[in-house]
């Protein structure tokens, strides 16, 4: 992100220090993560020491300091979804993609995340991929759902050496 692009975001909030959260959210939305150089520039403009910015960036789950994948898979682990078997769904995605929650595949295609409640409890267990909701998920449906986002992938699954 160029300095002028960052400045445009900062100026939208009149350069107020208390708007740091909103500024970081806008940057995250655009870049899909918070690059170090961008944070340094924000710190300089707002006169906030970089250690405080780092603290904020790591405290809030909305932010990622590493680039997110092309497709973001969010598995709801709210209580209602958990009680309907949400844990198995996440384990199935882990088996299919070879990554754990919070991680991104090495080809940067998928990021797997959990969220504490999407607020779609009636359709639980729920998975949201790129903002699209998939309700009434089950372990069996995971592979087919993923096919929509990786049509070229063969049937061969990546496994975590049989260990969940």
């Amino acid at each position, binding site marked *: 992100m160029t300095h002028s692009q960052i400045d445009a975001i900062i100026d939208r909030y009149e350069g107020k220090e208390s708007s740091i959260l909103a500024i970081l959210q806008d940057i995250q939305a655009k870049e899909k993560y918070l690059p170090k150089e961008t944070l340094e520039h924000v710190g300089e403009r707002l006169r906030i*020491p970089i*250690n405080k910015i*780092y603290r904020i960036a*790591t*405290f809030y789950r909305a932010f990622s300091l590493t680039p997110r994948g092309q497709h973001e898979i969010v598995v709801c682990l709210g209580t209602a979804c958990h009680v309907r078997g949400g844990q198995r769904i996440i384990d199935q995605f882990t088996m299919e993609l070879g990554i754990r929650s919070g991680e991104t595949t090495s080809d940067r295609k998928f990021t797997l995340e959990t969220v504490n409640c999407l607020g779609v409890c009636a359709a639980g267990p729920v998975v949201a991929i790129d903002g699209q909701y998939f309700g009434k998920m089950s372990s069996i449906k995971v592979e087919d759902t993923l096919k929509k986002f990786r049509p070229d992938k063969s049937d061969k699954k990546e496994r975590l050496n049989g260990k969940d």
Partner: protein
Amino acid sequence: MIPFVIDGQSVEGKEGGSILEVALDAGIDIPHLCYHESVKPYGACRLCLVEVVRGGRSRMTTSCTYSVMEGIEVFTHTEKVLRARRMIIELILAMCPGDKLIQDMAKEMGVNQVRFKQEDKDCILCGLCGRICEEVVGANAIQFAFRGDRREMIPPFQGEAMSCIACGACVVACPVDVIRMKEQGDERTIIRWKRTLKMKQCKICGNYFAPWFQLEKFREHAKLPKDFFDVCYTCRT
């Protein structure tokens, strides 16, 4: 001065002062880890718990964050307080079993066993290093990052603490002595923050007396001439 009572003893404190400050001044022993007179009270370790009776109601609270108030009655060694403190020191010991201070405090409180799986951390997350760096030194080199059980005190981006001036305040302040500083030749390193700085040599005595980076920061901040720190503090006097 505001009068109140601790363990039956009449005491007084300045407006805005904390119960803990007054207690320590009066020689009353309340264990504490994250309190230091040079920085604002934080209330992280939870060891300084006391029971405060105010308006007929009693509540257990940290004495470092409770401002003195007229007419309150403070109890520092009730059953409840002791039970809580024991569990807390046991939890800290389970986190940092190798820290000598914690071992000693635990023994003193009568905690002889740790019923939890022992970890091998050394930092007790009291935050004193970061707080002193921010409030006293103004270098803002380190801060807490992450949250919950992943909380830790680290330099930004987990690399070298680029704003650290290697003054050593954190080394002195750390209650469990896990921040170490070493000097070798013309270099000073704060090991925990991966910060090595070259030292400046005094023109007169030839000693390495302070890091270049630190002196430059002071010079800029105080708008001093370029050769101001060419002579060390000792030689100047």
